[in-house]
């Protein structure tokens, strides 16, 4: 009778014992700290400083066939633009070799009749030659030159008190949420998701597989510990570790990279905790099926880390993927988490987005934990 009464307390003691053991193991194995602290910082620095999708400065050749005040004024506009580095010549042949060699990214030609045709408005007076082998750059240069041209034309009209030329489309871009259009502002929050996925899925998969490999799981299962206790005892330390690296990453993002944070910290904690549970659940599930570390590592990289990278809107836009792949992305927890992170950082608390993401994360986390509980047995076969 007395023994029965003690059962819940025994359970908690077992969880505590297991948690303490896991914590000691985490602290003693430097590779865990590398994954939890050093790796997030490396990823953040990589995405913060190294990778950018922002416009760069292009070196182009400018050919002015007949110098006139007009061509001089347009050359100045080009040279003053932050996007172009200019070298000038009288003949386009001077630049052909450079373009082929890739030393310059394009050639802008102002023909001899530039001044005459400039104000006529219907035919393009300038020629842009770009390297089609690098279509992104080619497209960017084309667009920039066009915008510059439209801008210059207006300025000219005003300064010469000429009637304003009818602009065909008057584009006035206004960018919400990320006014600087700095890719760092969405890459850095996104990388938090990748980091947590690594800790949650990869690390957890490895530590459970390690117990099987070293034969300690057998000894553990021969003690009175139950499934739920085992799961909690295993999850708790890695949950804490994941949350610590989340805090480190967010602090680095905000204070070092100056990424704005406009949402509430409580929501960030909630969404992160749910995402962490989903990742841990996936890791545990993998490790219950793969009882050796090599297989566990391969499976978790293939099924957790890479999908988090590809199907989360982090780098690759889901909307531009084929429909089938878009469907796949719904099963990837990082999709919801990246969406919440980008919203919380750049837009603030947007209930419709965050609530949808929370629902998605709960479904996935619950699914994995349930699968794990079903797949884990307190027997060896």
């Amino acid at each position: 009778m007395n023994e029965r009464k003690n059962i819940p307390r025994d359970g908690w003691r077992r969880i505590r014992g297991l948690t303490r053991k896991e914590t000691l193991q985490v602290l003693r194995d430097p590779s865990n700290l590398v994954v939890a602290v050093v790796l997030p910082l490396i990823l953040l620095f990589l995405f913060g400083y190294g990778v950018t999708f922002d416009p760069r400065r292009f070196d182009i050749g400018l050919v002015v066939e007949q110098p006139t005040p007009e061509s001089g004024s347009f050359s100045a506009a080009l040279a003053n633009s932050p996007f172009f580095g200019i070298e000038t010549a009288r003949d386009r042949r001077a630049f052909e070799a450079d373009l082929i060699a890739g030393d310059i990214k394009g050639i802008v030609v102002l023909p001899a009749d530039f001044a005459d045709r400039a104000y006529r408005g219907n035919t393009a007076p300038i020629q842009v030659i770009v390297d089609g082998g690098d279509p992104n750059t080619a497209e960017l240069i084309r667009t920039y030159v066009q915008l510059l041209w439209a801008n210059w034309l207006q300025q000219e009209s005003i300064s010469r008190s000429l009637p304003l030329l009818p602009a065909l489309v008057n584009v006035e871009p206004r960018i919400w949420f990320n006014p600087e259009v700095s890719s760092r502002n969405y890459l850095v929050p996104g990388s938090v998701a990748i980091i947590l996925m690594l800790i949650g899925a990869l690390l957890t998969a490895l530590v459970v597989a390690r117990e099987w490999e070293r034969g300690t799981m057998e000894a553990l299962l021969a003690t009175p510990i139950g499934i739920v206790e085992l799961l909690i005892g295993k999850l708790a330390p890695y949950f804490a570790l994941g949350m610590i690296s989340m805090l480190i990453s967010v602090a680095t993002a905000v204070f070092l990279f100056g990424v704005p944070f406009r949402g509430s910290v409580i929501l960030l904690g909630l969404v992160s905790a749910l995402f962490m549970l989903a990742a841990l659940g996936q890791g545990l599930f993998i490790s219950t099926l793969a009882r050796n570390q090599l297989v566990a590592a391969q499976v978790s990289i293939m099924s957790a880390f890479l999908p988090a990278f590809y199907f989360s809107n982090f780098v690759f836009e889901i909307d531009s993927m084929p429909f089938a792949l878009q469907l796949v992305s719904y099963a990837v927890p990082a999709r919801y988490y990246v969406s919440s992170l980008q919203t919380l950082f750049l837009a603030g608390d947007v209930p419709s987005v965050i609530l949808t993401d929370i629902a998605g994360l709960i479904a996935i986390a619950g699914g994995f934990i349930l699968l794990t509980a079903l797949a884990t047995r307190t027997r060896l076969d």
Partner: protein
Amino acid sequence: MSEELVRIDAVSKRFGKNGPIALTRLSASFFGGHVTGLAGPDGAGKTTLLRLIAGLLKADEGALDVCGHDTLRAQGDIKRDVAYMPQRFGLYEDLTVIENLHLYADLRSVTGGARTDTIERLLRFTALEPFTARLAGALSGGMKQKLGLACALIKKPRLLLLDEPSVGVDPISRRELWRMVYELVDQGIGVIWSTAYLDEAERCKTVLLLSEGKLIYQGAPETLTQSVAERTFLVADITGDKRAVLTRALDAPQVLDGVIQGDAVRLVLKEGEKAPNADVLQAGPAANVISTPPRFEDAFMARVGGGAKGASPFAGAPKHGADNDEIVVEADALTKRFGDFTAADRISFAVRRGEIFGLIGPNGAGKSTTFKMLCGLLKPSAGAARVAGLDLAKAPGKARARLGYMAQKFSLYGDLSVRQNLNFFAGVYGLSNAARKGAIARMIETFDLESYLNTNAGSLPLGYKQRLALACAVMHDPDVLFLDEPTSGVDPRTRREFWGHINAMVSRGVTIMVTTHFLDEAEYCDRMALIYRGRAITSGAPDALKRRAASSKNQNPTLEDAFIALVEDFDRKEAA
């Protein structure tokens, strides 16, 4: 009669639908208050049976009753009453001794004052008090095993299951473990000790012998041993080749089983037969056949119908001239340092052609390091290793072409067929096309592999696996064959067959180097060096070592007794 703790009723277990059968309709009982040995070779089903008793596996058929609980319905109760030490002790190597103990105390709900007392008592019991802050991974094999035992005993169980507790443990620690287990038994705990070593099973009060998932004997070991009483003999004082005497003895119709035992040949006769005459065996003028007390292993062999008969197919014309004094393997003050740690310290010995030479010693003593330097796999820090007169440091390739190597647990490719394995190894040795064909054909013929050519190596019967591994190691006709624990965990029958092949090779002039911590295997050696703490502390023939350890208390020491005495002697001198 003490209480019945485990009753097993027609239990069968198979892994997967078409997987291997681990146990077939096994019925047995285990009782409290004494040690029951669970003996049998690797793969006999020992671990499966222990896991079934611990409630870690589910039987396909039949029922198990453990401490009054059904293993299927009352898993929780069983886990409270039964302590289980798995093969690798279940320790966390990155936790300290005391942390491991506290973890298991938490898991088994040992709290408060009882916890402090128990841990203190167990530390004293296992003599681990000075090492509480050491990481379990940094303990020696013997200490790990004691800690594993302490963790299993944190809450006094009714039944203690030990799965091959003496594997990888030196004889001294093994003896201490037995002392501890006897103490537990005195407290009324039932102990099941599984082992592949028959000499260990012999020490248990009752023993269950398993073979291929079937129970072949249950009862007191003495009863089985007595079944071959008056049927065991030694052919002593042999002049000439003792291995040839053994071959002739095995061919004699009245002999059931025979092995080399030191300088003598040990024989078990068929029931009602008379011992063969020493003259018939051509054992030399001084030889005589004397009666000797039976051993458990003799009875085991009789029970399974005896060993292989006569000469190994590998016997043949001598490979070299009769120049048996030529030194083939030589270690000259071999030293290997890893940082501050000296793994091998000025080890010297010389092995003549056609000798079987053993490096004997506990795990971590430096056997493997010495072995690897002799094979050219490790570069010595000082000293030299020579094989067939070639210095391994100067001409490693040439020297290695003269030696064959058979790793522990046969390094075959399990998912390649026998023929593919042979082809692969022929390629590795760089045999030319014609030579390769010839060598493979010769191996198939000598080892009788024809009927298995297209079978995957992984699914061969153990005896054939051994043959194939040996075939792969000797395909290039080496002068020296290195064997790394070739028959540990192998049943006595397969072991005899293996040594039959080896003896045949030796008679052809091949030199054999063996490392082992398994002293039964050491009996097959002509001479051996005892490696302990990186030093060769003594060397000589097995019988010479035994004689050196003989005392008034123990006039006929076994090789294990000799080993312990010599090591203790060394420790005393070191301490002085």
